[in-house]
């Protein structure tokens, strides 16, 4: 079956790729475009490791049909840092919010989606924002603390 050309922006840069019929966005990003930051955890919607933002909203890239991002803006953890780390990355480091790190790119994108909309979230809002993301290492507390520290402007306090 014919591949479909897809054009979208990835972290602000225009990208083109060929999507296989039925190919999910996670696979398209990793294999088609070479962005390995979204992680393959379950491909069932259960873990959130594949979380990316599409037009600013958090999506599970494993459950998005690749070709449907035509013309849309996709953001992944690869786009977070420029010359310096993104405040969320810095906070995750300071608060030991990553151990094995497999959940981290998804956690960062879920947290970014929250803070972009709600710069001063409550603890409950943070818990809710990462409720679609599993972490088998940290017990979540360091992750919640890291996200709250960015909101409070106290990453290094």
């Amino acid at each position, binding site marked *: *079956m014919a591949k*479909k050309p897809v054009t979208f922006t990835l972290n602000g840069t225009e990208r083109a790729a060929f999507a*296989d*019929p*039925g190919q*999910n966005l996670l696979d398209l990003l990793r294999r088609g475009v070479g962005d390995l930051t979204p992680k393959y955890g379950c*491909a*069932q*919607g259960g873990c*959130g490791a594949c*979380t990316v933002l599409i037009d600013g*909203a*958090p*999506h*599970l890239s*494993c*459950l*998005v*049909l690749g*070709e*449907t991002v035509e013309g849309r803006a996709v953001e992944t953890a690869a786009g977070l840092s420029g010359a310096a780390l993104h405040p969320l990355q810095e906070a995750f480091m300071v608060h030991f919010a990553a151990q094995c790190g497999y959940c981290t790119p998804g956690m960062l994108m*879920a947290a970014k*989606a*929250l803070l972009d909309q709600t710069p001063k979230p409550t603890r409950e809002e943070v*818990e*809710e*924002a990462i*409720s*679609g*993301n599993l972490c088998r290492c940290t017990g979540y507390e360091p992750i919640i603390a890291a996200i709250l520290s960015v909101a409070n402007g106290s990453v290094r306090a």
Partner: protein
Amino acid sequence: MTPAVETYATLAEAARAMASGDGVYLAGGTLLMRAVNAGEVPRRIIRTTDRTLREIAPVGDAVRIGAGVTMVELLQNRELAFLHAAARQVGGPQIRAMGTVGGNLFAPHPYGDLAVALLALGARVVMAGQAGARPLADLLRDRARTGLVAAIECPRPRDARSFGFLKVSRVHPRGASVVSIGAHLPREGGRIRGARIAFGAMGAAPLQASAAERALEGQALDAAAIARAGAVAAQGIDPPSDSLASSWYRREVSGVHLRRLLESMERG
């Protein structure tokens, strides 16, 4: 095997493409893509970019909600505040950004939390290419090969306090339903008129608890009526067993949770 993906500009064209029977309709994809990833690949995936599917508009005493409206879009609409408690309970933030109202009507057990609320409110479904609307209850009784849903027409509860929703899950804030309950109890002169109680995760699809409805009809919402409704909640219902709860457990606790929901509605 790889599927053919067909994208149509209008719902009508998508509905025609579905008519041959070998296509599966893609909405938000949270269930369909999960199946595709697991190797259950349909021959044809049919989708549409029709904007009318995303519209929310008042029609008389009801609100018409396009089948393609996502949970997040529903949560951003103040006219639909009465459905927010249910929509907020559908999965995590990603699932709510992706999952649609239409898809929720077809979600297998234990899913379909929003459909439970819609069923309790007596919502009707507008099918693509068909005039008029049919009761959601009919669609839920037989969901295979029904055609495409264009929109849902949900009556607005006249009094916000007459409608209550409760989802019971083992994992908070996100978990699938042990049971979910929608209760619409409009009152006239202090008496319940037109009681509707819907259960989720108590059958293959959301269903009405008719024995509990009968126990409440014409009564005042007081301790005695609530106790009677709770006692008969699972009558005539054979809930499924799964990794979350056994059939026996669901039968035992559904009445307790119904009672708690009704008590919280009684307190107002």
